[in-house]
Every structure is written in structure tokens, then in C-alpha cells.
């Protein structure tokens, strides 16, 4: 692999894409939203068990590329137990990281998810990395979304 490819497909990303965590619908889920990337057909549904402002339990399902699966998997691990506001702040940091706006994001609150920094060298793949996050945002807002949230909105 070239070095840029190596940064994109880091071992932890490949590992999460092959064996995604929280790849299920939690029985207690009371919020959900479907995310869709019309450019590639990737789909992602995020389920949340909200306790007031807190994300008690979270899971996801869907079909997508390695980047989108790994991003969804690691996102669920990261936001579990966080509040809505904390999750929104993480999304902002993550977005800045993958779009290359914030070179120092690695040192921020993103922890393990800093491995997605390599995505910034692949602009065509930014939407793969953010699909789950857009869907999370939508799921947090509404109890049940009728229309899938799109990466193109």
C-alpha cells in the first residue's frame, strides 16, 4: 500500500469494518433514523435508547464500505453514555478532522477515532466517514424520522 492508502485503511479501521461493534437494534431503542448516501447507495440506520439527554444505548445496521462501517462502529462506542450536546460536539470535531480543517483534532476528544484523519487526503470518501454521524444527529433530534437523512442535504 502507498502511505496515503495506509493512513486511510489503518488496521483499526479494517478491523472494525470486518467486525463492527453494536451492529444491532437495541431492544430498548426509542429513537432511530436512517441515513442514506445517494451517490453510492450506502445505507445506515442508527438506533438509540435515550434517557433524557443521555445516550443510554446505541446500535446501527446497514450496508456500506469499510470507511462507513468502521466509522459507524467506532462512533457507537464513542458516544454511548454521552449527552446530546457532547455527541454534537464530537461530530463537529470529527467533521473537522476528516475534512482536514483541524490538523490538531488528534489531540482532542476523539481518542481512537483520530485514525480517520487519513480520510482528509481522500475528499471523495468524506461522506462515507460522516454518514453514520449525520444519521446519529438525525436520530437524536427526532424520535422517529420519516424521511432518511441524506449526505446530500
Amino acid at each position, binding site marked *: 500500500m502507498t502511505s496515503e*492508502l495506509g493512513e486511510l485503511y489503518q488496521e483499526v479501521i479494517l478491523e472494525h469494518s470486518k467486525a463492527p461493534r453494536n451492529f444491532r437494534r437495541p431492544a430498548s431503542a426509542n429513537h432511530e433514523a436512517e441515513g442514506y448516501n445517494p451517490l*453510492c*447507495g*450506502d445505507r445506515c440506520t442508527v438506533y438509540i435508547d435515550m434517557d433524557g439527554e443521555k445516550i443510554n444505548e446505541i446500535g446501527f445496521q446497514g450496508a*456500506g*464500505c*469499510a*470507511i462507513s462501517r468502521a466509522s459507524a462502529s467506532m462512533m457507537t462506542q464513542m458516544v454511548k453514555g454521552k449527552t446530546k450536546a457532547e455527541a454534537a460536539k464530537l461530530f463537529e470535531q470529527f467533521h473537522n478532522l476528516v475534512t482536514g480543517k483541524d490538523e490538531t483534532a488528534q489531540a482532542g476528544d476523539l481518542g481512537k477515532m483520530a485514525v480517520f484523519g487519513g480520510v482528509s487526503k481522500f475528499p471523495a470518501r468524506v461522506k*462515507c466517514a460522516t454518514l453514520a454521524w449525520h444519521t446519529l444527529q438525525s436520530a437524536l433530534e427526532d424520535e422517529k424520522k420519516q424521511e432518511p437523512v441524506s449526505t446530500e442535504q
Partner: protein
Amino acid sequence: MSIAVHQTNSGSAALDIERIKHDFPILDQTIHGKRLVYLDSAATSQKPRAVIDAIVRYYEHDNANIHRGVHTLSMRATEAHDTARQTVRRFLNAADTREIIFVRGATEAINLVAQSYGRTHVGSGDEILITAMEHHSNIVPWQILCEEKGAHLRVAPIDDRGELELDKFAELIGPRTKLVAVTQVSNALGTVTPLREMIELAHRKGVPVLVDGAQAVPHLAVDVQALDCDFYVFSGHKVYAPTGIGVLYGKRSLLEAMPPYQGGGDMISSVTFEKTTYNDLPYKFEAGTPDIAGAIALGAAIQYIGRLGIDKIAAHEHDLLAYATAKVGALPGVRLIGTARERAGVLSFVMEGVHPHDLGTILDREGIAIRTGHHCAQPVMERFGIPATARASFAVYNTRQDVDALVEGMRKAHEVFA
């Protein structure tokens, strides 16, 4: 699977592809340090020097508005534009140059027919028949029309190989069918449809047929009179011409009876505030200053194809497709999507454990350009139960070496995700 072999004229020499590659300046570059291997011609083809030169020559020597001025440049531009229309007529073997309407592309041509022919002939409860392998551009314009008129869109199914189920197609042509709109070559599967039979079946019931030839014209000789289709559409940019120019062919009797699609200059013969008289064909459907350079460049592209010989191009591409089908199909974990007995230009596939997007990114780093996604044919993806495929598509400038590079790149992708 087997692929129908197109025979070349016996004794004629095969094409010298290495020389042809040099006709396409863009191919002479490296991507991420690797030789560019362009396998995305079904999305858009690259342009030969002859086409690029025609655009430059037009703007450097002849640029003026057409059908207006008496000055020399306007006459030159008009003549070049007219000549391009004649070149297109010969290319499709249409009976009459007035049957050739310049549009922006296949999409606009289909919308023109839907809005002009469709709105006057389709009413509540009527039906339009398409196939399950249409591009979105041959689905959505009909949905818009059906929505407006309270008509119904019927879809003829395809089998697991991606071939049309001809008997079911025949059954779906009913007393309320007002138009059949079908592709000649599927952009997602490469399937060549049994067009002659389909048109005959439709005509037996008095139903006109529109053919989407966007993926067909680069790969096979088209004769609209032999096919007896009523409308035929294609885009210039898939056949070595620039983007922004395309063609609607329509039988003269149909076009003459159709109302204009857009109003404006050039499509009228006289305008007063009380009454406007429309111009004759083809101008009735060409409102506003057209893409003059685009039409001229399309003419140049067709002449380029003519110099090589469409039959020789078809033979070369068939050889390449058969080679690629065997090589790619033999890779572990690869499933070909679209295994019709007759295919043209396109190899669609999925790779176990490697999402098409990831494959596309990895191949790009090897200098290889393929298309990944749903190819604007989401119903096809749904039919095969997959969200996306990887698609390698071929043009005259591709070689077996290109296929070998693709296979090598796929092996690398397999290693990354193994």
C-alpha cells in the same frame, strides 16, 4: 458464459490500438505515479485529438451565431453545423436530416419526447412500458409524465443473467400502452437487448418505441431504419464527443405532429404578439442558440469512428470484454453482475469482503479509473440485491494490458481486506 462474436470484414487488418491510444492526449499521463488506465468510458469517453482540434478550430476561425448573419463567419458556422447534422444522419442511417434534433444529451432527448409526445398522447389510465434495466434518465421523465397524467409506468422484468424476459415484455404491451421506452445496452450490466424483436412486438400492437442508445452507439453499428424504432437518443460525450451535445432521432411524421418542447429563438418562423408560427423540423425543437461547437465536435467524433470502422471497434471491444470477463471472473470471491449472452462495453462485479467504494479508492492509487456505485440504475441494484457494483467499461483505446492492471489492482485490494 459466452459472448457473441462480431465478425470483422475478412482480410481487413485489426486496429492498431497502441497507435489509437496516441490519438487521445489525456491518456498520456500518470496518476499517483502510475500509468493512467481509464476504464470508465461508460460514464464518459475520452476525446481524440481530432475532436479537440475541431473545437479549437471552430473557436479560432469560424465562431459566429448560426442561421442569422449574412457575414462570412456566420455562414461558415451555419455550414459546419449543418454538415454535422448530416454526419449524424449517416451515422444512424436516418432517412432524413430533418429527423436529427440536436439536444444536450440523451437525458434531454428523453425529456423532450416525454414532454412533447408524451403529454399529447398519454392520458389517465394509460401505460408506458420500460424495462428493469433502464438508467434513471429513462425512468424519471416517464414517472413525471405518469404523475401528471394519472398514467402508469410498467416495468418488464429481467432474469438473473440480466437479460430481458421477452415473453413477459410482450405480455405487458396492452391496449393502454402508449409508448415503449427501452435501452439498447444496459449501462449497469452491459446487456444488449433484443431490440428488433421488442420493436416488432410493440409495433404489432401499434405502440411506438423510444430507444435509449447512450451506451450502444459507442459499441455497435446503429441503423434506425433497419430497427424501425420511432425515437432514438444518444449522448455525444459517450461516443468521443464533448459533453453538452446529444441527439434525438425521431420519425419525421411523429416529430411533425409533436408540439414544441421549448419556446425561443430559432424555433419560430414568425412571431407577433397575437400568433407565432413554428419553424420546420428540426429547428422547431431547437430553441435558442445551440451548442454549435459541440455539434461540430460530435461530427468530428463520428468521422473519427468512421475512419477506424465501427465494426472493427466492436470486434476489439468484444475481444477485450471476453478477456476481462474470464480474468476478473476467475478471481476468488468475485461475482459478475450481468452475465447476459450478449453484452457490450461493460463489466460489472462485486468482490466478497471488498466494498466497491474501497476497491475504487485502492484502484485509483494504482492509476486505474473505474466507476463504483449504483450507476444511476438503482432498480438494477435492487434486482440483484446489492447496493452497488464496481464497473469497468471499455472503449477503443483500451488494451489487454489495461485489463491485466485491473486484475493486479483487484488482487492488491483483496490483500488489504483479506
